[in-house]
């Protein structure tokens, strides 16, 4: 319990980004925590429980994606849960937009970007989690940022054209 206490925020945010639109984050967290609980004695470095949880969540999410197809209800469930936590609807939309755009990135870039930008891990820690080196992580984050910005721009253009079409239809 105490060990998890320090991990909660960062672990949840990572799992949210992983599970967004693909699975129920609650199921993912429960699976990971049950496994971690039973294997807790085998974890050598208890201080790195967060790293273990993140790796387990990622592996579990990959195996779950193979079994489960994306479901629209999951995004609604995500919004409801955030609303229950007191998050404003506009903010929920922004967060979902971010997760949707992140989901379009290559998985490694996405992981590195989420862990660095949202969860606040250092590059060294990310390198340890991903079994890589700091240079590679730095590259992934840099490319991820650029690609995310481009995706945001494209999404904005698409939204604008869609809005214009709607206005033309109303005018006619």
């Amino acid at each position: 319990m105490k060990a998890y206490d320090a991990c909660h925020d960062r672990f949840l945010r990572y799992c949210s980004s992983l599970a967004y639109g693909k699975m129920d984050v609650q199921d993912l967290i429960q699976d990971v925590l049950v496994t971690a609980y039973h294997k807790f004695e085998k974890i050598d470095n208890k201080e790195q429980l967060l790293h273990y949880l993140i790796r387990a969540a990622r592996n579990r999410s990959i195996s779950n994606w193979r079994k489960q197809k994306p479901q629209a209800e999951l995004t609604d469930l995500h919004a409801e849960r955030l609303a229950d936590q007191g998050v404003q609807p506009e903010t929920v939309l922004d967060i979902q937009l971010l997760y949707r755009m992140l989901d379009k990135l290559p998985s490694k870039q996405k992981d590195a970007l989420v862990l660095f930008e949202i969860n606040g891990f250092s590059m060294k820690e990310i390198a340890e989690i991903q079994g890589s080196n700091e240079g590679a992580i730095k590259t992934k984050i840099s490319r991820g940022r650029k690609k995310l910005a481009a995706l945001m721009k494209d999404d904005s253009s698409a939204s604008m054209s869609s809005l214009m079409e709607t206005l033309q239809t109303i005018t006619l």
Partner: protein
Amino acid sequence: MRAKDTSYLIEIAKQAPTELAKQEVLGFIKTIPTLPPPSNNWFQNFNLNSIIMTTTAIALVTSAVIYFSSPSEDKVFEPIDPSTANPPSLVLDSLESPTLIMLSNIQTDTVKGEIVTTEETAQISIIEPTEEEGSQEQVVATIQQTTNVNRLNATLPKRRFDTPQPEAAMNKIELTGAELRSLKKKVTRYMKDDKLYESDAMFNTVEFKENAIIINGTTLRGEVYAKYAQLLQSFDIGPGPDRRVVTSNKFIQVGDFTSKGFNGSALGRDMEIYFLDSGQISINSLFDRSGDKLGGLNGLITPSKPKIEEMDSDIILKTEGRLKDSEVNISQIERIFGNDRKTERDNTSKAKSDHRKLFDSGKEAVSIYTKENEGKGIDLNGKGMRTLKKDLYRQLTQDNIISSKKAGIRMFLDQPRILVNGNPLSEQQTFRIERILDRYDIKTGVNVKILFNPDFIIAGEFIQDKFFGSVQGSLDSKKLRGSVFEQDFAKFPIFGFSDGMRLGNN
């Protein structure tokens, strides 16, 4: 509308509360100890669906294999005209007394259009119980089959035997690769010991007949025959009219070489089959000279193709096919005889000019002939004489008859034993020396001598005061005087040494 700022969105996501509250997760963690531990059984991946699918697939494949691999039981039964049908003869085993079986009103209803109704008397023939169990079963099985189809087969099946095997097949030679290698090694060693080995480039033929073994045209009898016969029989090779062992440095063939072809086992490469055809030796290439093991095979043997078995990266060849016609006739191979013959006059003049030395350059032999005796005796050129001396020295040394190759040798080719320096050779030693002499076309007989030392060699007939034969090397009266050869030359004025020796004595 402006594009959303990435940093702004990330900051929102960073500041926003988590999707699930911490208390909620901690509450869940508290309940984990009450949950059953996750099973690690590997067979949990199997479920009823996978079991059914796998079992069905295996059953289908198995039944298909059994169906397609079982022999076809289709049999064609042709209707038999009762008027032409012969009275059935039953052949039964183990009947104590003759019995008559009446076959009457046998009618079939099940076979449409093929109903045969007949009334015949079956004559029972008693035969002795056979030892072949298979044959008994076969008869019983055939009768039962006839009964099952409700048909009367007017000609009851006769007992069928396996195709009788020819006598040659019973004595068929089937040696393994290791046995063939061992046989080749031993036969080659024996032939080399007995001076019957041709050469590495040529092939060697051992014909194994009932009362004799013929190796490269030399008939062996007595002890030498027994030695080879024992060797061949140790490999289960018995005598036969066409039984041969043919070896070369590249292969060995053991079997019957008949006009129908080769029947036996062979091992090696660049293989050729040699067989006698109307007194001549013919060569038939089974394999081309390039060493291609299979390339030259097809088409050379007709009508049946040989069976090739790979064994230890070599080839076992078994064939009963007819061989291709001869391509090379060994009888056309010419023997090379010496052409240089020096007359007696030349020799004597040379001897006079060289202090009674009979001398030649060492490259040519001196043959001493008169018009009366031309064509008789031993006729060899210089090279032949030198190799003869070399071969004789080697053999005598191997047989421990002489201790040094520098010794003077007086060899009397008397029958039945050859004398060397007055000592008779044993039967086997004589045999070996005779094999060497045969190669040089030298026949044994009374008054036939071969005298040689490192300086010269003289081979021929010494009859009274005449010599018929060939000489090679340097004859020096001084050296001959007092040597073992003195008595041989003293009586022969043709060499001029009789005077020379007297002169020397003076």
